[in-house]
């Protein structure tokens, strides 16, 4: 990996591109620069959430504000853990199953919503119902899912081993760091590919005025469905990653309205209209809660979220384009 990083760094190109490559090289080298276990853990978590917020924003930025992405994350996370625990199915296959199931759910909900022109408030609230359905189903199936208490994947590491590829379990944080980094970068690439896709302009038109878009022959429902499937599948994979890394899932940490709103606001805080906006949102929330934790200690629960909530209100009123969106505009 070090060789790869140094090979990338001197690549010729425009100045901006070089800067990005240096940043990327620094990132790749991070575990080898004496980064402690706890900071590394924070970075992994931030990368996973950055990826998930990015997945949400891929459709959110086009006027499809979903309050239901907790459903997709929950499906991804629980599919992989349940298949492994109950049937010993490798998480790699479990991930495929979880993403497929999410796509199926997104297809059903998305097709119906777009076919019947459910947009704006109504779309937000229908998807909110979906995320609650998933959370409640997980709780109701408590005999298998552990209910509200959550569930831990069965340990797959032999004594002394630090990795089990089949079980997608790694005790070394460095491995997780590279996995999370790769997934996050993939998310950014998918965003760019979605932007370059011919339907991008159609989607922009749809987000501004559906009737007008339909009147010039844009297949509104089909175009919206495509981006919804992309977003839902990506989010489900984020759930897989979260479950395998955290090694614990509970209905309230991967599904339901609270997690759905967390995605919405993470993306909005950073700026959902720019590619790195959701990432900035995730980093911002993490930096905020860590700073406050250091300043006031661990015993005051909720202070970080109080400040975050107040900031969100101010953001939406005064800078609806988010932190990065506002900065880039200046």
């Amino acid at each position, binding site marked *: 990996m070090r060789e790869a990083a140094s090979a990338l760094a001197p690549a010729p190109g425009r100045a901006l591109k070089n800067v990005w490559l240096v940043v990327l090289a620094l990132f790749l080298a991070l575990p080898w620069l004496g980064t402690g276990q706890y900071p590394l853990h924070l970075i992994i978590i931030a990368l996973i959430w950055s990826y998930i917020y990015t997945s949400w924003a891929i459709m959110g930025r086009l*006027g499809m*504000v979903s309050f239901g992405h907790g459903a997709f994350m929950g499906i991804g996370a629980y599919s992989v853990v349940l298949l492994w625990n109950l049937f010993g199915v490798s998480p790699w296959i479990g991930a495929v199953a979880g993403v497929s199931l999410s796509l199926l759910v997104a297809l059903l*909900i998305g097709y*119906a*919503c777009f*076919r*019947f*022109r*459910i947009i*704006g*408030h*109504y779309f*937000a*609230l*229908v998807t*909110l*119902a*979906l995320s*609650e*359905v998933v959370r*409640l*189903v997980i*709780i*109701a199936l408590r005999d298998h899912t552990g209910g509200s208490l959550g569930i831990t994947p069965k340990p797959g590491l032999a004594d002394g081993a630090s990795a089990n590829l089949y079980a997608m379990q790694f005790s070394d944080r460095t491995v997780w760091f590279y996995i999370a980094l790769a997934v996050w970068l993939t998310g950014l690439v998918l965003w760019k590919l979605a932007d370059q896709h011919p339907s991008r302009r159609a989607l922009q038109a749809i987000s501004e005025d559906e009737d007008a878009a339909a009147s010039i022959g844009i297949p509104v429902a089909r175009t919206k469905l495509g981006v919804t499937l992309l977003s839902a599948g990506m989010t489900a994979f984020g759930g897989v990653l979260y479950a395998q890394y955290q090694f614990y899932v509970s209905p309230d940490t991967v599904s*339901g*309205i*609270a997690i759905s*709103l967390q995605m*919405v*606001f993470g993306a*909005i805080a950073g700026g959902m209209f720019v590619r790195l906006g959701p990432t900035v949102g995730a980093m911002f929330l993490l930096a905020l809660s860590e700073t406050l934790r250091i300043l006031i200690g661990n015993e*005051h*629960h*909720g*202070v*970080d*979220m*109080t400040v*975050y*909530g*107040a900031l*969100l*209100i101010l*953001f*939406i*009123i005064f800078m*609806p384009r988010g932190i990065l969106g506002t900065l880039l505009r200046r």
Partner: protein
Amino acid sequence: MESVFDIFLLEAVLNGLLLGGLLALLSLGLNLIFGVIDVVWICYAELIMIGMYAIWWLHVGQGLSLWLAFPAAVVLVGLMGMALHYFIIRPVLAAEPINQLLVTGGVLFFLQALATVIFGIDFRNLGVRLPGFSVGDMYFSSARLLAFAVALAAIAATWLFLRRTFTGVAIRAISQDRSIMPLMGVNPGRIYLVTSAIGGALAGLAGCLLVLQYDVHPAIGLSFGPLTFLICVMGGLGNLIGGFVAAFVFAQFISVGGFLFQLEWGYVIAFVFFIAMMFWRPQGIFARSGR
């Protein structure tokens, strides 16, 4: 065996009816605000939570009689409704509609976290438990019956206010045509504030009724908030009668579904039914024509 089953089913149906009254009250304030201001207060359930905490603090913490604590909570949450509109909704009224939804989501986070900071994550209860009563083999909670009666009375009072007073008529008028009311000498800003105060006060009242039945904790809003929005949407956002009927339909799904299977399945069935209904009648069960 068959008759035993029936009487418990009847108990579930009647309990669903009682729950329906409470849910109807929960959705009334939210619906009124949407109908008039065209904004969904995602944080509505959190306002109810503040009301519940206010009562708990006044009664358990300060030793105030419940007869004083209840009206104090209604007034407090009513004022909070006005403040929410004036300081937070008003600045984004001209922005994209989804921003209005999102800004109240920020308020949801804020209030929930603030409650955690102030009251901690413990479950708090009033220490007041109203006795239950039996009819034949069926058992009912008097707190639920009281909530049902008060909720219906409050709904009737709101209805009369909207029908019989000048302000009420102005509120209804503005919900039908936003642009023409200033020409009729009605100040929309003032009507919005009054509506927000009423919506807040109804949330405060709901808090009074809920705190008699449930322990209060910072995340309690998340447990009945989603349900409240869905009832409003199913009834047709802003349609008060639709919301009223939808509340009873939802309550039956939850109560009977919970009786036949498990509590969570009752909710799951209710939510799935909601999603299905949205496809059948996206504008609500009593969709008004033309919109």
